[in-house]
């Protein structure tokens, strides 16, 4: 009886990984095929979805797992973007090295700030990271090599010739963004499902008990902050690639949008992150359609998306505080229990 149980348990540990690999491969393949069949605008939006999804993933790891809420994810994205742009401008290494540099530099900053952050709880951490998000972009004006308000141009070049002449710049962006995001999300999902993910959840739910099983909760929090900053840095580099590496790209609104996306996606599971990215891109589209009915004044087009996302944010946190995914899990568990 016990032996059978053990076999089951090993199967249980083993199957999801293969499923995960398969899922990411299929998703990647599907996306790239899709990229050939839609308009240029949609391709660009696809790249944005991927970038947002990645940024949302970084926040889910940080908040949903290790329990630290950062309002300054945009700041780490900015760090990654500037690091990538500077690397590309001064060193011109292969593209992959540039992106790795973005991850490493942002992670480094994350480790430094996370060292302090690990000692803060809830609102203190939120306020501090908010100050970071507001204050960091002003540094661009302080050092001339950061390009001031106009920012830096992060040029990844055009697609290699072997992809054919039809291969547009936006499609190239989309390929890079989608590939980078898929690979990174795959890594994150693996980590979240490993003993690291369990340890974060444990430390968040009950720090004393987590310490007693031998986890250094503070160090684990710093680790989460570091990884999250690194991932956000990659998302920032990608965003810099499709738009501009300038203070105007990495505003407080961007940080808030990422939080909104993460909350709507359900903070406690990574699976919603792509959906969250999709929502962030779709809502302005819907808003444009809606505001079309009200006569297209600028005040309307500029504010309807914010209104919709903020309302959704409030409603989600009021009525499914732990995110739709967690709510669903809970519901399922209860049903299972009743059936027993």
């Amino acid at each position: 009886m016990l032996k059978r149980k053990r076999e089951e348990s090993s199967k249980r540990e083993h199957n999801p990984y293969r499923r995960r690999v398969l899922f990411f491969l299929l998703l990647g393949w599907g996306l790239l095929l899709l990229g050939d069949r839609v308009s240029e605008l949609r391709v660009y939006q696809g790249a944005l979805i991927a970038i947002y999804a990645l940024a949302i993933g970084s926040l889910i790891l940080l908040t949903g797992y290790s329990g630290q809420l950062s309002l300054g994810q945009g700041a780490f994205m900015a760090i990654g973007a500037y690091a990538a742009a500077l690397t590309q401008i001064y060193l011109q290494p292969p593209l992959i090295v540039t992106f790795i540099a973005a991850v490493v530099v942002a992670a480094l900053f994350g480790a430094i700030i996370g060292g302090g952050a690990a000692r803060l709880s809830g609102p203190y951490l939120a306020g501090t990271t908010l100050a970071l998000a507001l204050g960091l972009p002003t540094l661009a004006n302080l050092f001339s090599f950061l390009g001031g308000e106009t920012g830096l141009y992060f040029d990844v070049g055009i697609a290699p010739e072997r992809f054919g002449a039809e291969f547009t710049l936006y499609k190239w962006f989309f390929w890079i963004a989608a590939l980078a995001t898929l690979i990174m999300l795959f890594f994150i999902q693996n980590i979240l499902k490993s003993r690291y993910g369990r340890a974060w959840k444990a430390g968040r739910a009950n720090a004393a008990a987590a310490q007693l099983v031998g986890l250094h909760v503070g160090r684990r929090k710093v680790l989460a902050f570091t990884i999250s900053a690194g991932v956000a840095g990659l998302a920032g580099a990608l965003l810099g690639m499709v738009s501009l590496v300038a203070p105007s790209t990495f505003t407080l609104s961007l940080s808030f949008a990422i939080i909104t996306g993460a909350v709507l996606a359900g903070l406690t599971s990574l699976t919603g992150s792509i959906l969250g990215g999709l929502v962030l891109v779709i809502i302005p589209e819907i808003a444009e359609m809606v505001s079309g009915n009200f006569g297209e004044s600028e005040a309307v087009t500029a504010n309807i998306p914010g209104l919709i996302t903020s309302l959704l944010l409030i409603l989600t946190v009021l009525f499914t505080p732990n995110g739709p995914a967690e709510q669903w899990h809970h519901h399922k568990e209860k049903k299972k229990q009743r059936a027993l």
Partner: protein
Amino acid sequence: MSQTILEIDSLSVNFGGLKALSNVSVNLREGEVLGLIGPNGAGKTTLFNALSGFVPAATGSLKLFGSDHKWPRPDQLVNLGIARTLQGVGLFPELTVLENVMLGADVLAKTGLVRAALGLTRRDEERLAQKAQTMLGRVYAGHLADRRADTLSYPDTKRVAIARALVSEPKILLLDEPAGGLGAQDIAWLNGLIRNLTSSCSIILVEHHMDVVMSVCNRIYVLNFGEVIANGTPEQVRNDDDVIAAYLGASAAHGGEK
């Protein structure tokens, strides 16, 4: 006579100006169950907290397995061969029972971050899961492995908490009110388990359920106002006048007054 494996010498703990513990000395021998009792606020849990690094010791020294040791940080405890359960049970609610117990064995895990990111965790995970499953079986909770911890009944959470403490293979087990909130049947089971465990580890037990304390402990320390007022066998302790006064009230002398 068996060896002394843990020795606390004149431990004092202060909260603000308040003395929570003053000059408490306790020693634990190999294979014994040591009871720690006393009225509310006597300092039992404070002693556990000082020993496990949650509150700082003002004075006092610690000897583990015969050699001097600094007061450990909470997260170092497991590596020193000491495991502790918490009064509030402290399971991790969103994790499954199996995952909870696997975390108890996390110190034995080898997977680094890079391997984890690449998903190369299978061997390690299987090993931990197997260990956890075995330990769950030992506390008759094997069938609960896949349940989320927050869906368990209270007695079941206590079983799982003990399994989580045991899976790290401790030499010393600190049990903080394991019988609290349990019914008669579960308490009988607990008594049996504690006796069985002494073959592999020594136990310090904080408990106010007197039946349990009196029936499983080899020796008992009684604390009152942060001081040890008596220690000895259960028989000696419960006939000690100071102990009776501590429990039933110091104004026994005024009994007839009105």
